[in-house]
C-alpha cells in the first residue's frame, strides 16, 4: 500500500502519517478525482470547503473590483448600469453564501472533531454530500451571468417585486441555486450539532468545549432555525414568478412588505451565522498569544447564546423606513441596542485577556487583534444605524455599506484568515512564512480601512447604495475607496502565496505549535494531523485554571 501521490501534498503527509501511526489499515482511498468525490474524511472535506471558499472569495472579489472600478470616478466609464447591478448582487451573494459560510463550515469540519476528540464527524457521508452540493449551487448561480437577460440584478437581499415582477428570466435558476446552497448549510448544521452533542471525548462536558465548538454549536442552531425560512421565502418567490400566486404582489392581495419581514427574519440571524464562529476563533487565538487563560469563558458562552436569541427579535431594524408603527420602531430599536450588551461582554473579555498578558504578534494574533478593533468600529456604526430616527437618514446610503463591510471584512474574513494562519501548522506541519504573512497583514489592514472608512463619510453626506454613478462631491471619497479596494484585492494574493508555501514546506511545527496556552485537544495530535485521529478517544484532562 504505497501511498500514491495525491493532488495535495498536505494529504500525502497525512496519509503517510496515518499509515505509520495506526496498526489497523484503512482501505486505500480511490485514486484521482474519485478520491475527492467520495471522501468521507472530515479533514479532506474541510480542506475542500476551504479551497472552494477561497476560490469563491476571489470570484466575489473580482465582482467587487468591477464595482469599484466603475465607481473610481463619477460618470459611466466601464460597465453599463444593468451589468453594474448584477455585479453588486453577485458580489454579495457569492461572498455571503459561497465564501464566508463555507469557509466557516470548512474550519468546523477540520477542527471540531479534533477539538472534541472525535474520530470524524457524526455523519461522514452526509458531510461529503453537503460539500458537493456547493459547487453545483454556485456553478448554477454563476452561470446565470451568461443567460439572456443576465444574472440576478436586484441586490443580494432580492426584495420583491424587484426579484419577482421585474426580475430577469434567470431568477428561477437563482432560486434553485439558493435552495441547493441552503440544503448544504442545513445538512452541515445537522452534522455539526450531532457531532458536538454525541461525539465528545469521555470526560469533556459542554462547558469544557473550546469556544470555537461552542460558537459553532449555536451557529448551527441558528442555521436550522432560519435556513428553512429562507427556503420558504424563495419558494414563494418561485410561485409568484412561475405559478401565478400573489404572495408579494398587491394586485392579487399579497404584500411586498411581507417579503421584507420574512427575508429579514432569516437575514438577521444570518448575519450572526457569519460572525459567531469568528468569536470562537478569536477566543482561541488571543489567549494563545497573550499567554493567559481566556478571561470569562462562561460569560463568553452565555453572551453567544444571548446574541443568538436576540437575533430573532431585531429583524425590523432593517426596515425602519417601510412605514412601521412607532411602537414597532421603538421595540426594534431597543432590542437592537440590547445586542450591544452581550457583544460588549465579549470585547471586554478579549481586552481583559490581553491585559497584562505576555503578548507576541505572530500572524494569527495580528489578524485577531485587528478583528477586535475593527469589528468594534463596525459594531459602533451598527449602534448608530439602530437608532430609528437616525436610520431614516442613513438608510440605503454608503454608511450602511461601510457598517456591514466593517463587520464582514475585518470581522468575519479577518477571523477566517487568522484561523488559517493559526491552524496551518496543524494542517501542513509547517509554520506559515512570517515575513510574508506580516506583509499580508499590514497591506490588508491598511487597505481595508482605506476602502471602507471613507464610505462612512460619503454615506453620511448622502451617497446612495447600489448606484453606478454619483454626484461630483463624492468623487474624492470614492477614488480613495477604489484605490483601497484594489490594494486589498491584490494583497490577498499574498495570502494564497503563504498558504501554498506553507503546504510545500517551511519551518517544521511541533504538535503543540503555539505553546502552552494553545492547549485544546487539536494540539495534542502530531503536526501535520494524520488523516485519521482519535480513533481511540482521548481522555480529556481539564486544564488547571
Amino acid at each position: 500500500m504505497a501511498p500514491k501521490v495525491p493532488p495535495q501534498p498536505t494529504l500525502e503527509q497525512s496519509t503517510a502519517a496515518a499509515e505509520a501511526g495506526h496498526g489497523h489499515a484503512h482501505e486505500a482511498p480511490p485514486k484521482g478525482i474519485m478520491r475527492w468525490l467520495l471522501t468521507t474524511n472530515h479533514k479532506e472535506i474541510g480542506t475542500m470547503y476551504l479551497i472552494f471558499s477561497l476560490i469563491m472569495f476571489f470570484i466575489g472579489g473580482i465582482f467587487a473590483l468591477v464595482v469599484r472600478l466603475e465607481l473610481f470616478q463619477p460618470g459611466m466609464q466601464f460597465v453599463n448600469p444593468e451589468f453594474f447591478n448584477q455585479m453588486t448582487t453577485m458580489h454579495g451573494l457569492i461572498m455571503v453564501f459561497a465564501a464566508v459560510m463555507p469557509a466557516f463550515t470548512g474550519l468546523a469540519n477540520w477542527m471540531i472533531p479534533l477539538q472534541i476528540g472525535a474520530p470524524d464527524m457524526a455523519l461522514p457521508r452526509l458531510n461529503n454530500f453537503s460539500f458537493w452540493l456547493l459547487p453545483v449551487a454556485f456553478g448554477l448561480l454563476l452561470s446565470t451571468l451568461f443567460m439572456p437577460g443576465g444574472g440576478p440584478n436586484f441586490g443580494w437581499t432580492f426584495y420583491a417585486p424587484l426579484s419577482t415582477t421585474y426580475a430577469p428570466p434567470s431568477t428561477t435558476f437563482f432560486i434553485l441555486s439558493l435552495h441547493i446552497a441552503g440544503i448544504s448549510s442545513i445538512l452541515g448544521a445537522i452534522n455539526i450539532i450531532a457531532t458536538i452533542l454525541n461525539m465528545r471525548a469521555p470526560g469533556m462536558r459542554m462547558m469544557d468545549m473550546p469556544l470555537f465548538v461552542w460558537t459553532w454549536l449555536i451557529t448551527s442552531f441558528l442555521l436550522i432555525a432560519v435556513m428553512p425560512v429562507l427556503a420558504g421565502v424563495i419558494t414563494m418567490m418561485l410561485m409568484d414568478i412561475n405559478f401565478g400566486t400573489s404572495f408579494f404582489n398587491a394586485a392579487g392581495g399579497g404584500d411586498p412588505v411581507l417579503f421584507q419581514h420574512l427575508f429579514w427574519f432569516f437575514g438577521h440571524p444570518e448575519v450572526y451565522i457569519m460572525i459567531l464562529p469568528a468569536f470562537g476563533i478569536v477566543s482561541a487565538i488571543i489567549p494563545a498569544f497573550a499567554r493567559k487563560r481566556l478571561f470569562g469563558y462562561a460569560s463568553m458562552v452565555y453572551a453567544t447564546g444571548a446574541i443568538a436569541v436576540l437575533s430573532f427579535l431585531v429583524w425590523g431594524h432593517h426596515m425602519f423606513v417601510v412605514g412601521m408603527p412607532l411602537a414597532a420602531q421603538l421595540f426594534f430599536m431597543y432590542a437592537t441596542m440590547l445586542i450591544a450588551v452581550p457583544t460588549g461582554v465579549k470585547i471586554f473579555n478579549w481586552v481583559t485577556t490581553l491585559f497584562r498578558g505576555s503578548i507576541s504578534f505572530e500572524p494569527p494574533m495580528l489578524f485577531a487583534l485587528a478583528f477586535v478593533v475593527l469589528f468594534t468600529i463596525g459594531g459602533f456604526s451598527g449602534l448608530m444605524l439602530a437608532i430609528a430616527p437616525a436610520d431614516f437618514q442613513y438608510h440605503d446610503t454608503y454608511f450602511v455599506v461601510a457598517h456591514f463591510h466593517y463587520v464582514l471584512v475585518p470581522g468575519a474574513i479577518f477571523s477566517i484568515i487568522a484561523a488559517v494562519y493559526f491552524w496551518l501548522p496543524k494542517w501542513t506541519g509547517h509554520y506559515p512564512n512570517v515575513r510574508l504573512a506580516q506583509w499580508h497583514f499590514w497591506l490588508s489592514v491598511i487597505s481595508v480601512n482605506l476602502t471602507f472608512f471613507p464610505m462612512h463619510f460619503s454615506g453620511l453626506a448622502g451617497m446612495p447604495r447600489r448606484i453606478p454613478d454619483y454626484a461630483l462631491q463624492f468623487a474624492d471619497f470614492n477614488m480613495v475607496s477604489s484605490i483601497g479596494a484594489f490594494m486589498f484585492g491584490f494583497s490577498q494574493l499574498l495570502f494564497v502565496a503563504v498558504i501554498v508555501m506553507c503546504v510545500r514546506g517551511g519551518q517544521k511545527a511541533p504538535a503543540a505549535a503555539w505553546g502552552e496556552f494553545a492547549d485544546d485537544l487539536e494540539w495534542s495530535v502530531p503536526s501535520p494531523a494524520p488523516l485519521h485521529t482519535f480513533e481511540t478517544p482521548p481522555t480529556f484532562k481539564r486544564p488547571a485554571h
Partner: protein
Amino acid sequence: MSQDDNEVRQAGVRRTVWRSVAALVGMFAFAWALVPLYDVFCRVTGINGQVDTTAQALVHDDVDESRMVTVQFITRNGSGLPWRLDVETRQVRLHPGQTSEVNFTFSNQSRSENWARAVPSVTPNTATRHVRKSSCFCFEEQLLQAGERVEMPLVFQLDRDLPPEVTTVTLVYTLYPVEGKTQKLQAGVKLDEGGEA
C-alpha cells in the same frame, strides 16, 4: 472504544438528527404560517393601511360636531391597465360620525372588456380601523366593456373614536387587473390571479 459505547453514540446521533429534522420541518411550516399571520396581524391592528373589505353597518349615533376631519382621495393605476379611475372630489371635510357619499368614475379606455379591482389603503395607520364603509366598489371586482364608463359610490363614515390627533385621512385606491378575466395586456407583463382581497 467498546462496541457498547459505539452503539450508545450512534443512538445519540440518530436522536439528534431526528430532532433537528423536526425543528427544520417546524421552521419551514412556520415560515408559511407567517403569511396568513401577517395578514391577520395587519388587519387586526390596521397597520399597513389594510381595511376591512366587507360592508360594515354605519353607526347612527350623534355626530361629533366638535371637530372636522379632512378626507382625501387618491386614485392610482398600477400595472398598465388601460382604465381610468376618477373621483368627483379630491377631498371632503366632515365630522366624525357623519356619513358621506363620494362618487368614483371607472372608465375602460381599451377596445376590449377587462376585469379589474381597486385595492384600498388608508393613511395614517391609526385611522385605518375607524374607517367604516357600508358600500364600496372596492369590495368586488369590476367588469367594464370596451369604452364603458361606470359611476360607483363610496359610502363611508369615520367613527367617533378616531384618535384626536388625526386631522387628515387619506384613502388610496389602486387599480389592478384581474388575471384569468382579462387578456394579457402587454406581452411580457405578468398579471396575477386575484385571491380574496
